[in-house]
């Protein structure tokens, strides 16, 4: 804990974001820094792993340890870092193309594995950085630069997918509601296990369908309907909502042991603190004679 309370601006880097004015990424950036400040984490207490996309460009705008990896591959880097140092706070930032398209396999398996990291996905239903192609979340019929005659494929429903695949914490937020987003980031981080937070993030440049106004008219808070997030069937039904009504808040939560807790070899000191000068393989060498 720092002596003086930390502020949102303590996590600013010398570089101001290069996102388009009005981009939904600003809200997520603010929410993330708010959450760090509320949690009292110093910049050196946390590792943020970023994917590649407009979202991943946040790597140059946040003061914290960072790893800006490959397109779609942020999750395995984060998992490796967490296993090496289970005391480290690890948060992952990525886009919907990054995480649900290119890196979809890692997402599926991270949900199963339940390593204690937090995954925040900037879901703008489009590819931003590569200038407006179809994303796995783009709605059927949408015209994008890679689908000039309209999207044919059904969109992925990220939160329903996460619940079905065994996610232990699945939540959705809207980047236009920073206070709720901040609280959800904090809840996600506090969850012991893999937490998935899908953030609806308008892309003002390439997505003229899912705009701020479009979302404002549709989002509602799950608390307002007394949603029971321990009920998987109910959570799944809510997760499927899209179109007229879109839920925000915690959809599903279940406490089950993390991967780290179940892996015997990780009991005790984090791997990074274990000595390397006492290793002695003589017993195994002997067994081979």
């Amino acid at each position, binding site marked *: 804990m720092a002596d003086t309370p930390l502020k949102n601006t303590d996590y600013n*880097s*010398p*570089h101001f974001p290069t996102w388009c004015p009005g981009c939904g990424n600003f809200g997520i950036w603010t929410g993330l820094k708010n959450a760090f400040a509320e949690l009292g984490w*110093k*910049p*050196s*207490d*946390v*590792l943020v*792993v970023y994917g*590649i996309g407009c979202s991943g*460009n946040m*790597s*140059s705008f946040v*003061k*914290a*340890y*960072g*790893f*800006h*990896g*490959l397109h779609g*591959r942020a*999750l*395995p*880097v*984060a*998992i*490796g*870092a*967490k*296993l*090496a*140092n289970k*005391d*480290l706070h690890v948060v992952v930032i990525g886009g919907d193309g990054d995480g649900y398209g290119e890196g979809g*396999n*890692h997402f*599926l*398996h991270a949900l199963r594995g339940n390593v204690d990291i937090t995954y925040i996905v900037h879901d703008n239903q489009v590819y931003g950085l590569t200038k407006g192609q179809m994303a796995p979340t783009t709605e059927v019929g949408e015209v994008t630069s890679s689908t000039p005659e309209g999207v044919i494929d059904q969109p992925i429903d990220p939160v329903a997918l996460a619940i079905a695949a065994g996610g232990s914490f699945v939540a959705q937020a809207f980047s236009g509601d920073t206070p709720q987003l901040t609280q959800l980031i904090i809840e996600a981080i506090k969850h012991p296990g893999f937490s998935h937070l899908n953030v609806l993030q308008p892309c003002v440049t390439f997505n003229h369908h899912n705009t701020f106004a479009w979302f404002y008219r549709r989002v509602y808070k799950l608390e307002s309907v007394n949603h029971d997030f321990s009920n998987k069937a109910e959570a799944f039904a809510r997760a499927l909502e899209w179109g007229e009504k879109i839920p925000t808040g915690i959809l599903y939560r279940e406490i089950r042991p993390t991967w780290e807790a179940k*892996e*015997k*070899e*990780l009991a005790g000191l984090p*791997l*990074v603190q*274990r000595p*390397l*000068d006492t*290793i*002695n*393989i*003589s*017993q*195994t*060498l002997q*067994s*081979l*004679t």
Partner: protein
Amino acid sequence: MKPTVNRFTWKIGGAAGDGIMVTGAILHKYCTRAGLWAVDYSEYPSLIRGGHNTQVVQVDEEQIFTHDQGNEILVALNEETVRLHAKEISPGGAIIHDPDRLVINDAMLADRKDIQLIPVPLVKLALENKGKDLMRNTVALGATLGLLDAPLRLIEEIFTDTFKAKGDAVVNENIAICRAGYDYVRQNHPEPFPWKIEPRRNDPRMVITGNDAITLGLIQGGLKLYAAYPMTPASSILTNLAEMASTYDLVAKHVEDEIAAVNVAIGASFAGIRAACGTSGGGFSLMVEGLGLAAMSETPLVIINAQRPGPATGLPTWTEQGDLRFILHAAQGDFPRIVIAPGDTEQAFYETARALNLAEQFHLPVIILTDKYLAEGHWSTPVYDQKKVLVERGGFAAAHEQASKEWYGRYEDTPSGVTPRPVPGKPGGVFIANSDEHDVFGFASETAENRLIQANKRARKLDSALKAMPPRLVWWGEPNADLTFVTWGSTTYACREAIRKLATMGIHANVLQVLYLWPFPADELKAELGKMKKSVLVEGNQSAQLHGLIKQLCGRSCDHEKLKYDGRPFWPEELVALAKEIL
């Protein structure tokens, strides 16, 4: 006639699922404990039941490196074994078979009249001694030892050591079944066999595969996390480490695919531990982008690539050295990497441990390049000296340098190219590891000046690393030879075996092994090539990948070239014949 003592080749053949590999491993261990040297190798198709599997164990009183094509004892569990391998049997050699299961006729022997048939009721004896059907292999092992007039005492010790964890009953059952085969042969085939075993007294030796040696090199070298997705012939590194994880305090993680494997290893290494991943060519293809990520973010990384014949799924369970150029050039852009190709299990052990040091000290990827032959073959070898393995940590930022800073210049230019790195979680200055080109703090930067500074800094690390490397060329045999085999990787074994055989014929040949394929020892190699009387390049691929490199980087070539890419390792006999032809 006096029998040949302590020099023979034994082969067993059967279908997949017949459990033949365990039998050969036990015979290998027997001979090693008997103070002899041995090698063994298995050939098997990529399926679980049926097909044709063989295992060969070759034994000698002198250190040997590769098995020959011929053999003296063939244990045939099915007809195919006889049809395929009877022709390889030396005159006077024997076929052990179960007459209740396999009747051998002249046609199957292709008119060989100089082979003895040793019928042993393998299954019947196994069942009579309360064993299962599959224990017929243990009967065959006993029969082999009976034929070779070898003492049973040693095999009893081996069964005791191997099975004591499973209880006395299992130990005794194995001993009884083995003895049944032994006694049967002594009683029913008492005539002296032209080959025999006489135990010798020697320092203890191990029986080990290349993958086992790599596993131990990783462990003794301080590995704390291994991430992999199973792929022959690399899989046993993962399963070995998984089995030994609790003994040696490390994590072996079977991840969803090879892309995850390389990225998990990078993440773990970034966070400060020694991490590695391993695969074969197909999986390495998936790791390629990650290889570049390790280079760009300057994160230490060790990758093991155990080759098999490609392209695509190729010949999954066979051997080849066809990935060399791919490994040297894999991933977009120019960046430093180190590529080490061990030529025997000892090098596999020591160089793997060294790879962890080099990667950590110089912040770059190091690739250990092996193949199915080295990965899965067994060799008897002197017990490794673990004290020779030094975990030399390095490349980390000192706490006091980091403490007072807000941002740490992780990619600051330095004369050596190596910039000390903090690990995440350490208090003080932070930084970004970035797959985008970046400035000193890791912020994305696209200026021309910065690009050059960073690219040159990365490249310089390879020159610095040179000082920490052992000699990149390794000589085997005596200098001033009439013929030098120039080779790399596991083919070094066949070349060493060939020069051993050539020496007995009065021909002086030696071997030059390129141990470090990158950075390529061009100057040294050029000088050596200039001194050779005659040279022949030997490697296991179609396009002479090493030879091409030599021509390109040394401006010279070897006088002759011998390539093999049929999935089989080189036979020493073919290299001997080649040497005779050249000289």
